[in-house]
């Protein structure tokens, strides 16, 4: 007779051992990322010490930048967003706002506010897109172009912008992102430094809890609500140690869709943003890097620059956050699936052997492993395969290590930019970092699992994002 109880016990213990090994490998990699992020930050601070950017600001040889701002039903905030873009401190600047078939008065508001007149533009159909209804220009702002098109999603809107852009570089962003005035001067550095760079990303920070006026953050604060508070810690960790660390370990794979700078020619060469993908920003970066190896055999560089900052409003309700995380994870799965041939392929150098496998094993599978581990732990405890002291100690260890990484990120922020000027904000950040692993993290695991499930079912919808609006809610 087979002793099923014993079999279950053996399986559970083996499973827990496998998960432990995964836990050790992943966390060792995180530690490595933290160290490389620290080294990269040190180098960055050395490079920018006493730096003057006036040359970049008014030089005749800096690359022209086109800001691509897709807008869908942004009637309430579009004027302020466009004004803040037009006043960015970069001389050779063009702003293209793409009205992606908004159902509200977004276009009417823009026409009224900026005195737009319809113009004829001979288009170059380098990328296939939904039809354009009309193109508008403003006599008062000759560097502003407004495009009204049939709805086709963010990727399609950005492709329209790519077709019409006159800049050597294009900056893809969300219409509601608040970009700091000198961010472009900072973000353009990698492109000035080497012709090998095809993309650069800046830091996205959360504006909840801060005060904005005229499209600029004027008073930075940490929210008292848990959900945006946890996200502040998450974003700091993702940008200050995740992406910065990758600069030294083989280059980044993610440039945030809310604020990224790309070489236009390179983006067009890879066919622009992919339609039908919910992770179009990551997909584009992967295509750009992949093409470098395939066409010239030379890796194309993607840099994360820590000091250009763009502010975004994080979801404040669990419902909206769930939709966002589900979509992000579907996007990750979709992108990795489209480019699965890269994984462990030595032809693609560090991209194929380190970066893509990391994203497969750590970023994509993490929620699965974590869920299986938690479930196994509960079942193991229930049937007595795992003893309570071990489970409690292991939970404390995992929690403690996660919290240490988060706190280290806050420390890195303190050693680099120290944007928060009040002690209570630092205390709040520490509180959110300590609490993040209890409950919130498990919720994000569930949301990401849902994303994976939807990916397997072929769902590509975005889900509505509800925002309270930084300006509306907090303007003084």
């Amino acid at each position, binding site marked *: 007779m087979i002793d099923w109880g014993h079999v279950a016990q053996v399986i559970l213990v083996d499973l827990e051992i496998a998960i432990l090994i995964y836990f050790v490998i992943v966390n060792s990699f995180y530690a490595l990322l933290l160290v490389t992020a620290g080294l990269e930050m040190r180098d960055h601070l050395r*490079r920018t*010490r006493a730096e003057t950017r006036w040359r970049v600001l008014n030089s005749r040889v800096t690359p022209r930048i086109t800001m691509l701002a897709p807008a869908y039903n942004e009637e309430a905030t579009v004027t302020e967003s466009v004004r803040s873009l037009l006043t960015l401190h970069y001389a050779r600047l063009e702003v293209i706002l793409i009205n992606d078939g908004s159902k509200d008065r977004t276009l009417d508001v823009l026409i009224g506010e900026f005195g737009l007149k319809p113009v*004829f533009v001979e288009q170059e159909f380098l990328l296939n897109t939904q039809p354009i209804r009309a193109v508008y*220009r403003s006599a008062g702002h000759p560097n502003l172009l407004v495009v009204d098109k049939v709805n086709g999603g963010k990727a399609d809107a950005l492709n329209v912008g790519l077709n019409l852009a006159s800049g050597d570089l294009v900056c893809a962003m969300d219409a509601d992102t608040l970009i700091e005035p000198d961010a472009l001067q900072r973000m353009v550095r990698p492109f000035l430094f*080497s012709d090998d760079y095809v993309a650069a990303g800046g830091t996205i920070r959360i504006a909840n809890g801060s005060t904005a006026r005229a499209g600029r953050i004027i008073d930075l604060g940490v929210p008292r609500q848990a959900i945006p508070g946890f996200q502040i810690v998450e974003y700091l960790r993702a940008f200050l140690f995740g992406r910065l660390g990758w600069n030294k370990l083989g280059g980044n794979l993610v440039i945030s869709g809310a604020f990224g700078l790309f070489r236009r020619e390179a983006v067009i060469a890879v066919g622009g943003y992919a339609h039908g993908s919910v992770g179009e920003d990551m997909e584009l970066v992967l295509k750009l890097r992949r093409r470098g190896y395939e066409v010239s055999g030379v890796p194309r560089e993607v840099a994360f620059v820590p000091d250009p900052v763009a502010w975004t409003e994080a979801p404040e309700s669990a419902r909206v956050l769930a939709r966002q995380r589900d979509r992000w994870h579907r996007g990750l799965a979709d992108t990795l699936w489209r480019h699965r041939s890269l994984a462990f392929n030595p032809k693609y150098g560090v991209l194929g052997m380190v970066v893509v496998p990391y994203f497969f094993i750590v970023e994509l599978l993490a929620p699965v492993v974590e869920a299986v581990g938690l479930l196994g732990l509960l079942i193991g405890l229930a049937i007595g395969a795992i003893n309570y002291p071990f489970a409690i*100690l292991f939970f404390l260890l995992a929690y403690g290590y996660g919290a240490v990484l988060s*706190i280290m990120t806050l420390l890195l922020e303190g050693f680099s930019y120290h944007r928060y000027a009040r*002690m209570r904000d630092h205390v709040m950040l520490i509180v959110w970092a*300590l609490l993040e692993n209890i409950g919130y993290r498990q919720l994000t695991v569930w949301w990401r699992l849902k994303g994976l499930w939807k990916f397997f079912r072929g769902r590509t919808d975005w889900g509505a994002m509800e925002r309270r609006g930084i300006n509306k809610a907090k303007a003084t």
Partner: protein
Amino acid sequence: VISTEFLRWVLPLIGGLLLSSVLLTLARAAFLIWYNHQTHRRLAVARRALVVAVSTEAVDIPQEFLAMPFRVKVRALVDLARGVTGIELRRVRAIAAQVGVVAAAESMTRSRLWAKRLYGARILTVLGPDSTHIAPLFYDPEPLVRAQAAEWATTRPDEARIASLVLLVYDDVAFCRFSATDALLRIGTPAVPALVERLDNISGIIALPLLDIAAGIGSPAFLTAALRLSKAYEPEVRARAANVFAAIGGEQSIHTLLRLLSDEVPDVRAAAARALGRLEHWKAAPRLAEVIQTDEKIARRAAAHALRALGAPGELFLRKIVRESDAEAANAAREAIDYPYAGGPA
């Protein structure tokens, strides 16, 4: 694999690490808040003292400024130097020398550490005199330092430095090339002899960066080289030579541009059309109108914008093309008419 005993042993370590990182973060935050407040206060005092010293041309430097730490002195001096010119800038620089900031920066430029050399060069760029310490930095192994030397030379050009900048235009690192090009464009006329000498002795695509600088400066001294390079084998070179003609003007330039308007490569024809537009050579209007109606897209668009730049005569041609020509030509003309300013996109 992992025993409970092992976890019991590791857990206090993690706990200790967590506690110490929390304490360190709090301590760092408290220190920074105090430090920023202190620096802010000191900077205000230093700036006030400095402004008084500069505006009254006082012989003695105020004691409160002398008592400031080095970094505060540097920041106050650099901030003020960036906002003043002429006598006041000379006075700020003299104070920087008197308080030892210049000497310290000069000594930094000799450091083994690139970050120090860079910091020293950056201080000297704003506060430094016509120092001999920078010259070796044009050949520094660190690209950022070389680029900084180029920035320093922008406001202190002499023959040797301009020669170094011309060499730096061909540096392996793009940022050094950018810095040298930018510096030469800002230097302008004093850089012309060195650029002409170099342009006279090169041909092919190696001439491209210097042709761009020549187009930016626009001195008639570049005419001979541009005429020679307008017959180069490489179309990029001919196109860039057209840009130089647009900046120089004159009969020979116009004559050559009209010839380039019939070049075999559309990009060259487009560059020639743009150049004729920039020169507002209205006599070329019929020829440009012909290009719009017969040429390839890139040349058509350039010619249309060039016609718009010619003012009323060009616009008459454009409107005629919209009414009477085929769709492709009419589209190019309509786009130029609708463009918010004459000359088209940069």
